[in-house]
């Protein structure tokens, strides 16, 4: 314990990029020269000291808060106008979810079961003529904002580092697959990384992680250089997720969940016994959920990648999953009369979104504006909100 503790403390002490003595010297002297009226604030930047004292500042702040509350009460929609106020997504509970908006996707090609939030947008894809069209959609209305065409079949998407990372496979004529980096705001191609047969992608712990089941590897890509800067052998590597500084990978060759230390690429744990083997992960806060899509089974994992308790069996195959708040996970499944629900840590039953009833759901994504449901058959996106 003592050695582990010391090691953890040392790692914590090494966080961040040191400014160095010279830079800090400059900053301290600038601060002192600015006089006592200005002082450097923790976290960078400046804050002003108010010469008229704290009481006046407190009174001014109080007055501002009272004015804001009064303004909010006056302009808030609600009982006065007969409309119901939409609850914040922070209070999004399944029993209060209702359909609040529906948007049609372009009916071209075959929509894929991919829906990824990035900033205020959503990204989804559609296969067409041997290529793939990616759509950037408004996170509030679902309206199309940008279209990007790529060669090859897009098999996975992830957002991170201000970009959307696209795994494109099957380019034909023996060409290798690749990871394409798109600017999350404009959709412009920023970089392409050639990888043999990439499958799944995740971002986090300072890197982009791509699995390649054919080669049996996990590749680590440095987002600063857009190059592979580390590779770890994981036989049959498929699903991947990043949780803190750990990367979880499914080893389908041995039906294991492999937990990897992100900075060192060292295997920390190999956990077996998750039956059936997971096909995807959802990281929600500090919790990791392993999902066996086909079997309709979901289980929470501990830090070693082992199952915590028995799996939760849904009424049908899982068709979509997205992280909820406080460690919970939103799930869509085929089966029963309600197809969307929330599974909270420690619970063994999915709390259904009763008011939504049967809504075809092929993918889920949580944005600031609600829970989005993708229906690939009808090419629609439906936004659910708590009311």
């Amino acid at each position: 314990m003592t050695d582990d503790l010391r090691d953890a403390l040392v790692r914590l002490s090494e966080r961040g990029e040191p400014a160095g003595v010279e830079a800090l010297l400059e900053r301290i002297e600038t601060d002192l020269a600015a006089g006592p009226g200005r002082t450097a604030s923790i976290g960078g930047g400046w804050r002003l000291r108010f010469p008229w004292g704290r009481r006046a500042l407190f009174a001014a702040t109080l007055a501002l808060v009272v004015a804001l509350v009064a303004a909010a009460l006056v302009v808030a929609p609600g009982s006065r106008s007969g409309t119901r106020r939409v609850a914040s997504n922070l209070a999004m509970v399944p029993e209060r979810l209702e359909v609040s908006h529906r948007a049609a996707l372009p009916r071209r090609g075959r929509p894929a079961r991919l829906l990824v939030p990035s900033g205020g947008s959503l990204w989804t894809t559609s296969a067409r003529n041997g290529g793939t069209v990616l759509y950037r959609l408004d996170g509030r209305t679902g309206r199309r904002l940008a279209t990007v065409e790529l060669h090859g079949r897009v098999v996975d998407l992830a957002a991170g580092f201000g970009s959307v990372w696209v795994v494109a496979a099957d380019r034909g004529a023996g060409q290798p697959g690749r990871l394409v980096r798109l600017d999350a705001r404009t959709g412009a191609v920023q970089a392409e990384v050639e990888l043999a047969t990439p499958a799944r992608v995740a971002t986090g712990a300072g890197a982009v992680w791509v699995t390649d089941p054919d080669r049996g590897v996990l590749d680590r890509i440095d987002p600063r250089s857009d190059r592979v800067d580390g590779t770890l052998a994981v036989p049959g590597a498929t699903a991947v997720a990043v949780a803190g500084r750990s990367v979880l990978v499914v080893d389908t060759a041995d039906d294991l969940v492999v937990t990897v230390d992100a900075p060192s690429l060292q295997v920390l744990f190999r956990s077996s016994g998750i039956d059936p083997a997971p096909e995807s992960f959802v990281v929600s806060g500090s919790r990791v959920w392993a999902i066996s899509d086909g079997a309709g089974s979901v289980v929470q994992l501990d830090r070693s990648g082992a199952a915590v308790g028995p799996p939760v069996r849904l009424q049908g195959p899982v068709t979509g999953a997205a992280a909820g708040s406080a460690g919970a996970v939103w799930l869509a499944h085929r089966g029963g009369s309600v197809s969307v629900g929330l599974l909270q840590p420690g619970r063994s039953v999915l709390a259904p979104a009763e008011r939504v009833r049967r809504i075809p759901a092929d993918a889920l994504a949580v944005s600031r504006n609600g829970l989005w449901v993708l229906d690939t058959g009808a090419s629609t996106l439906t936004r659910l909100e708590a009311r």
Partner: protein
Amino acid sequence: MAHDPELRHRLAELYVPLRRFAAVVGSPGWEPDDLVQEAFVRAMRVRPLSEYENLGAYLRRVMLSLAINQRRRASIGRRVLERWLGGRSDAVEPTYPSDLADLLRLSPDARAVLWLVDVEGLPFREVAAIVDCSEETARARAVRARRVLRLALEDGTR
């Protein structure tokens, strides 16, 4: 700009250990260098650096006090936000359970005690002076922090 030679000397001498201490006691959202900077500025506004009997200890105490105040403010802000938003908070733990996440859940002064005792190897008398408590209290904090970490580790591996 001609730099203050005393400041340059003391900064060069203390920068690395102070930055490490700042990284341990500060919240993850802060740059450790900002804490070091603020501590030096505050110390120099009180008196010249050469007049401090133990400058390193004084600066550590200032950084710890800044870290505690900042954490308290952040915690009050979060509670107000939770109430404002109807009793539910989206402030889920940002990290997967790990030894660092467990460490960061401890209070800054508990982390400071562990760092000073287990890594810097200071006697509890000196630790108590930095953390501004009695020697016994410093000992108790170290024991309590280790117990909390051990329970968190056991809980995570269960």
